[in-house]
């Protein structure tokens, strides 16, 4: 129990600055703490029970349990490190803070290093995606959206776990726009170039898929599928699994670009403040050694974010390994085969599959939840590529990636509860408006790019897929525009407040 004042952190700025933290109202806080602990252990107990009971019903369900516990770890890491991809790009432009950009680079290097081992040993579940301008444009649309909503796709999930109602609204908005966007045709068909239409029809897809009707279907089959697929190791002509994985994917695909990007971030957003502090502390403030020390200080500035990035990276790599192990154990390549084996045939795609990425993913399962709901309400939305051909519309109770996202929210809630950071926080009309507009843009952007900040950026970059950085470049551009807009908006509102007094 804390009463009164407890010094937590001391730092230096022209002498000693005392930063004091006080936890107010000891008795009240303790009861909140106990209540939080009960809730946290209830969530853990529920997930444990779900895993054990489902496994005892049929051992196949351990497949869902594996997704669940990796999702849980992702949620804990994201909440602990306040790990938000939106913040990585946005806070650089908005307030000049590189904390999250550094954290993401660390996570990608670690994820890349672990999954390179998984790939080199032939256990990867990853398939590279087509690259081209579409990835940049998709990233841009997604980037604007994630600044407006205040969080990326994964960030909104972990913030929902903190009790943030706006984040829940973002999640609903992304999911709804995804589920609608993948199936709409009508007047949007008029916006499809004829070459895409012809090319889509020429793919010879099953008759059940009306590929000539629907904007996204024609974009996918008539444009994206025609784009090349390339990894850095293929680009460099590297041979041998270990060299391809570690030199191509990790060194050339992640470490080099990430180091260069961090140098840019250091020069533009960190160096001035760092050198000023050196001057004040009477330390040398010139020379290469100083610059190197500054670069390292930037990387080590937020241990919390770095630790989260580290665990997240390792967990994401292990996830691939475990899912591939499960597939080998059960002799399947997709959870759809297991569902069939268990007697569930509804909700499978024409290929007999369901969405089962084998690694961390966010948006497709969200689209499936709402797509499934729309389907039950009478919308015949199974004749498109996204649901009908590739991902299916399984019952949410049997959606493997869905278990991961639910557990991600749960993991974040547990971490927040145990740190006394859980708080129901209602939305406001203004935030709800940004959540709906931004969430819609994120839904559209993630379909154009075949993934969100996780699926299209984090995972692809970490797997040495050329399309990953292209989506990232787009996100940077979109975040910049979003910040410009919010700067204007904030200035306008401040001016109104300040009309009442002289400053």
């Amino acid at each position: 129990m804390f009463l009164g004042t407890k010094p937590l952190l001391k730092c230096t700025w022209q002498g000693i600055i005392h930063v004091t933290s006080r936890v107010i109202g000891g008795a009240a806080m303790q009861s909140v703490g106990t209540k939080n602990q009960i809730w946290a252990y209830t969530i853990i107990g529920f997930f444990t029970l779900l895993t054990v009971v489902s496994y005892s019903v049929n051992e196949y369900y351990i497949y869902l349990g594996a997704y669940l516990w990796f999702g849980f770890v992702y949620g804990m890491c994201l909440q602990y490190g306040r790990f938000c991809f939106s913040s990585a790009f946005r806070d650089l432009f908005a307030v000049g803070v590189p904390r999250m950009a550094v954290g993401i680079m660390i996570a990608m290097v670690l994820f890349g290093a672990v999954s390179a081992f998984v790939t080199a040993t032939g256990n990867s579940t990853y398939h590279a995606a087509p690259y081209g301008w579409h990835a940049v444009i998709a990233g841009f649309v997604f980037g604007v959206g994630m600044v407006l909503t205040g969080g990326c796709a994964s960030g909104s999930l972990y913030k929902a776990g903190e009790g943030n109602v706006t984040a829940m609204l973002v999640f609903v908005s992304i999911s709804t726009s995804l589920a609608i966007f993948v199936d709409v045709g009508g007047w949007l068909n008029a916006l499809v170039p004829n070459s895409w239409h012809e090319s889509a029809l020429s793919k010879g897809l099953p008759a059940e898929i009306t590929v000539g009707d629907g904007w996204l279907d024609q974009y996918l089959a008539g444009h994206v599928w025609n784009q090349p697929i390339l990894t850095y190791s293929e680009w460099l002509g590297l041979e041998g699994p270990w060299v391809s994985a570690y030199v191509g994917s990790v060194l050339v695909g992640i470490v080099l670009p990430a180091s260069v990007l961090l140098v840019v971030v250091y020069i533009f957003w960190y160096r001035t403040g760092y050198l000023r502090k050196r001057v004040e502390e009477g330390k040398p403030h010139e020379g290469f050694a100083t610059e190197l020390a500054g670069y390292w200080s930037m990387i080590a500035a937020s241990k919390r974010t770095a630790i989260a990035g580290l665990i997240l990276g390792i967990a994401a790599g292990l996830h691939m390994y475990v899912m591939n192990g499960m597939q080998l154990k059960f002799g399947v390549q997709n959870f759809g085969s297991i569902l069939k084996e268990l007697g569930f045939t509804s909700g499978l795609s024409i290929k007999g599959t369901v969405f089962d990425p084998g690694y961390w993913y966010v948006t497709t399962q969200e689209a499936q939840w709402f797509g499934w709901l729309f389907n039950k309400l009478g919308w015949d939305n199974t004749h498109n590529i996204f649901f009908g051909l590739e991902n299916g519309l399984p019952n949410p109770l049997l959606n493997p990636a869905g278990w991961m996202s639910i557990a991600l929210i749960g993991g974040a809630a547990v971490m927040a509860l145990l740190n006394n950071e859980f708080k129901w926080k209602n939305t406001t009309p203004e935030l709800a408006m940004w959540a709906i507009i931004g969430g819609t843009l994120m839904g559209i952007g993630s379909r154009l790019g075949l993934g969100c900040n996780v699926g299209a950026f984090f995972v692809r970059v970490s797997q040495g897929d050329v399309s990953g950085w292209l989506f990232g470049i787009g996100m940077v551009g979109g975040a910049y525009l979003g910040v410009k807009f919010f700067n204007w908006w904030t200035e306008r509102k401040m001016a109104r407040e300040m009309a009442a007094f002289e400053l």
Partner: protein
Amino acid sequence: MKFEKKSEGLYALDVCGYVCPHPQLYTKKALEKMKEGELLELVFDNASSGESISAMCDSRGNEVVEKLTDSGKYTWKIKKMAA
């Protein structure tokens, strides 16, 4: 959002209810408008904004002189230093 002058050299900014990036943006704007030596009493309840505000103050040389936490609600006092 509420930004007001409490007394000479003391301003209050309440951004409770706001999520990222609003709290850090309003804090940045408020500090930019204030003069050296003036104090900003900032109230917010978005934990992740705290990380950004802390780093922003550190890099710009503004002094966080007090941090109070009360079940998810943060009250920080920030002293504006020379630009």
